[in-house]
């Protein structure tokens, strides 16, 4: 703890212990007024907020992007568009997107979720396309020869074979959405990012706690999805690297 120039009580510097304490017990706020901040209740509330935001945004993105990507991949159409769309999507500046939606439509859950869904669409679409497009043609022809309908081919042949790539798209989208959900407070919806952005209220321990929590949340989601991917991938495909 550093000694201040004015000889006052030492300036608080963020510490891991402080951050952990912040997570579990409500602290008296830097600003007087009697209301405490932090504590496990608030942490859970904001975590659930962020999760809910992420899940809904991904659901919307999947509903929009997956059918288009699967269709284009199955028909082997518009390859360069699909691929460059995926790359271009990673260039969308998140903060500006959220701010723009807030300014144009208003603040709140609905508007933030739309912005996040937009961020999730490109990776899902591009990977859906690539996954289906790259399925071994002979397998598809064989299935066609057996009399399967196009939809059946998609369902029973192409999708199972494309699972690693499809899941890769979902995981990419999740990383992008969780990262942007962290700055959702700029769009008027409170998530764990609130702790990080508003040092005024939560103090430096709050900021560190927020950063740790967000990192943990993101990594946990990623590992979960990796596990799901492993479960869904048929054994023959598991020889591919992650």
């Amino acid at each position, binding site marked *: 703890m550093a000694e*201040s120039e*004015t000889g006052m009580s030492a300036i608080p510097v963020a510490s891991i212990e402080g951050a952990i304490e912040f997570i579990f017990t409500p602290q008296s706020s830097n*600003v007087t*007024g009697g209301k405490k901040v932090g504590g496990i209740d608030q942490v859970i509330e904001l975590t659930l907020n962020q999760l809910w935001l992420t899940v809904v945004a991904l659901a919307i993105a999947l509903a929009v992007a997956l059918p288009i990507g699967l269709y284009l991949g199955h028909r082997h159409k518009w390859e360069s568009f699909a691929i460059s769309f995926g790359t271009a999507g990673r260039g969308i500046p998140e903060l500006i997107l959220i701010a723009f939606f807030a300014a144009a439509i208003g*603040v709140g859950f609905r508007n933030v979720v739309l912005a996040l869904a937009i961020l999730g669409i490109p990776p899902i679409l591009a990977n859906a396309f690539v996954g289906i497009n790259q399925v071994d043609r002979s397998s598809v022809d064989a299935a066609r020869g057996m009399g399967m309908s196009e939809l059946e081919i998609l369902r029973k042949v192409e999708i199972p074979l494309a699972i690693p790539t499809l899941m890769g798209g979902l995981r990419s989208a999740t990383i992008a959405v969780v990262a942007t959900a962290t700055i959702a*407070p700029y769009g008027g919806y409170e998530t764990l990012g609130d702790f990080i952005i508003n040092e005024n209220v939560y*103090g430096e321990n709050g900021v560190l706690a927020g950063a740790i929590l967000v990192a943990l949340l993101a990594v946990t989601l990623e590992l979960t999805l990796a596990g799901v991917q492993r479960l869904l991938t048929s054994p023959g495909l598991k020889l591919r690297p992650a």
Partner: protein
Amino acid sequence: MNMNPTRWRAVLALMAALVLTLGVAACGSDDDSTSGSATEGSTEASTEGGDESGGSIVSNPENGKVSLTVGSKNFTEAIILGEIYAQALEAAGYKVKKDLNLGSETVALKNIKQGTVSGYPEYVSTVLTSIFGKEPEEVPADATEAYEEAKAELEKENLTAFPPTPFASANAVGTTTATAEKYGLETVSDLEGVSEKLNLYGSPECRQRIDCLAGLEKLYGLKFKKFTPVDIGLRYTVLEKGQNNLSILFTTDPQLSAESDKFVILEDDKKVFPAGNVIWVTTPKVVEEAGPDYEATITEVQEGMTVEVIQELNARVELEKEPAAKVAAEYLEAAGYTG
């Protein structure tokens, strides 16, 4: 192998050259310090405010040995004030660095105590209610009394406060004229019974502040449908884009006079939102190092700051979207302090 090695080498070289050129060009044109943008925009200030001493602030070469860092809180009015003080001190011959947009009072104070910032403009009301936890009714109605009390409290914490500005500003509960008409709202007490249907928007620290949500709940006994923290810059957006919304505004906001048919503030009949004049908060150590011109410059340059002037300056930045540095320079010149 159909790869042409010469061609490949040429391409690599071209790529490297392009990237390096960009890098060098970019690095070369940015000659400011890399940590943060503390000096961003100050080049404009020094050319506009400092070189002609035709104004009442005279450059004292003694001051050139002293380096000051001017801080400010994170909303328009605070940033404008920071710019004015910074440019004035520069005109007086000090070496001035700016570290504006720090955050709310807690962050600003932290920076002062750490010594990273020499001083910043603060509101007397915020000092008493937010920093020292006094109830609004304990804030003296008389501006000079309030200043004396704030100064005494700050001195106990080894901080110094310079005399206050002429103007004062206060928080206020505001809404659209449509909403006010719909629910018959003229004073904050009128919200009784109605507030459960309305959403309140305020800055993140509003929840904890007695001159904000905490006071509305405790002293007015109001419960709102929802409180959503938003960045101070969005305080009018939430009113424009939504319905049945209340927002915490400032009495010196330019929108209140320029768009008076759209927005209205409710009268603070229980006096929960004390108005505060602005005082310069700094440390005795800096005061000693900086010499007499420090306080003299600051108190002098404040004298032109009436409510009307501040509203005009706020309007130029918030409505006309001019740079705060330019607006500050315009004020200093028009008031005869510089140039």
